[in-house]
């Protein structure tokens, strides 16, 4: 039985996943596909963070684009305008995002869930307005260009393939950390919190503290993804960080399944890759996301992929 157990350990699963991604990256010759693969990686980081919040803490944020934007714009502005070094700026951005999320999270987490939904939605919209209006600093609607790629020593991550070797280790680390987090004492506390807040608090789980911490963690992951994005593309503009991005990542979480981190990986990959390759999505993008979000939540509230999986198992059992 020992070997079966080991397959279910996060380290082993992540090893297999890393080999899979590495295989994809090596097989792909077209740099556009590599670009899509990198964007998938960036989205996975955001979606995993959001799933920790939605799936484990049972809270929903409609403003994750804002945290993503804070990371991206801080990295962009501080390195280009003020000449800060890239890596320390990235960590500074993480700390600032954590502070902002903490300040928003503390009062709101004490209230019912939909206050957080509305407050994060509002925060996202306000930040978007600031990005557009404060054009001396942010470049306004036309965006902010000239961000240098990241480098470690003499290795510069300036091509799609090279960036692949930066983003995917980050994705794997995030995934590994999150998988371990949800299996830890904290993770069990979070699961207790999700299934029944009152019971959780009675059994000694600091529910308020956990919710705020997970909110901060998920904001920090979005900020990390944002910084990486800015250094990868070399250009940021408000359009990337609109309300619609927040909806996209929420949809990815819900398609992949609440509380299923591997589901998030699949959900992010699926919803990033499909629109890229189906041209029809251009005009119908907004409509499709709305429809997917609504239909999945109506019929598979636990998530599309887990829902389909259960349905499949059920029919399979019937046949036998």
């Amino acid at each position, binding site marked *: 039985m020992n070997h079966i157990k080991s397959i279910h350990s996060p380290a082993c699963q992540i090893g297999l996943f890393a080999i899979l991604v590495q295989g994809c990256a090596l097989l792909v010759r077209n740099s556009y596909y590599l670009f899509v693969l990198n964007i998938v990686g960036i989205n996975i980081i955001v979606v995993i963070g959001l799933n920790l919040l939605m799936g484990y803490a049972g809270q929903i944020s409609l403003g994750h684009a804002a945290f993503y934007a804070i990371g991206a714009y801080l990295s962009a502005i501080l390195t280009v305008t003020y000449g800060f070094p890239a890596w320390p700026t990235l960590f500074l951005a993480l700390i600032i995002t954590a502070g902002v999320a903490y300040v928003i999270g503390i009062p709101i987490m004490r209230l019912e869930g939909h206050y957080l939904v509305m407050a994060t939605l509002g925060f996202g*919209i306000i930040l978007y307005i600031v990005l557009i209006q404060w054009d001396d600093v942010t470049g306004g609607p036309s965006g902010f260009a000239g961000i240098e790629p990241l480098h470690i020593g003499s290795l510069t991550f300036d091509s799609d393939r090279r960036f692949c070797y930066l983003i995917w280790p980050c994705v794997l680390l995030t995934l590994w950390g999150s998988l371990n987090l949800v299996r830890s004492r904290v993770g069990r506390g979070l699961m207790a919190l999700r299934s029944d807040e009152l019971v959780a608090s009675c059994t000694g789980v600091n529910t308020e503290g956990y919710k705020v911490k997970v909110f901060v963690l998920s904001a920090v992951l979005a900020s990390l993804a944002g910084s990486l994005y800015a250094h990868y593309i070399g250009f940021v503009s408000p359009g990337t960080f609109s309300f619609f991005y927040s909806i996209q990542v929420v949809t990815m979480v819900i398609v992949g399944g609440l509380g299923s981190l591997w589901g998030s990986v699949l959900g992010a990959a699926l919803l990033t890759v499909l629109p890229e390759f189906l041209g029809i999505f251009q005009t119908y993008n*907004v409509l499709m996301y709305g429809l*997917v979000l*609504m239909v999945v*939540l109506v019929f*598979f509230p636990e998530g599309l992929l887990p829902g389909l999986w259960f349905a499949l198992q059920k029919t399979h059992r019937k046949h036998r």
Partner: protein
Amino acid sequence: MTTPAQLWQFLLSGLTTGSIYALIAIGFSVIHNATGIVNFAQGEFVMLGAMTMITFSRDLGLPMPAAFAASVLAVAAIGIGLERGPLRNARSRVVLILVMITVGASIFIRGVSMIIWGKMPLSLPPFSGDTPISFLSAAVMPQSLWIFGITLCAVIILHYFFKHTMLGKAMRAVAANRRAARLSGISVDRIVFFSFALSSALGGMAGIIITPITTMSYDAGVMLGLKGFSAAVLGGYGSMAGAIIGGLTLGVLETAGAGLLSSHYKDAIAFLVLLFVLFFRPAGFFGMTKVQRL
């Protein structure tokens, strides 16, 4: 420098937009009271009201009053569709899932509207000309008077409805205690159905009367919804008097802020008000202190 005349002008135009926020906030409260959920599609109803009015009056050439009635009915039908369709058939009864379904619905409505009405902002002609009337040294657009009038009528009718009709009393009973209402023979289903019809009709009406002043585009729903929600929270979520006072206060704060501080960040004011209230007094002006603190 700002003169008293200017302040007076801010007050009047603030009350105009404030009336709209009040109507949207009442819509939020009505649905919240019947179902306990926040309807994120409330702002889309406002947008849809304006858009269907444009279709009925400009494209189909219906006279103003007929087009007004037809669009309010159309939006009410869409609101009923949202309740009868996705919300009623949802497999999960968890409040947050239902709330997210309304988010999905609002994005869907937005996407469909973009395809039907395009991306450009559209406008409606004012109901009765656009010569400003001077009123105590401030210029008032006739449309503002229409907005005050219609909002006032709506509020009076709603007040009568909630206090003196059987259905209105039943709705209040459900808001007070669902189970007790059901035990005393009220069909909660019917109340939920009716509350969606009522709140979408109110939203649609708000959209129709504001469009001659502000124009309307397919993506305006989110912002209007957010402001209506802020107004509702400011006044005390779920209370009708609160929704009205909250809406008017927010409208005035916003116009004054735009005039005195910066017009670029006008839309940020509603959100700052929302955060401020949630920080310091989550029950709002009129709310009972029973905001659920989990």
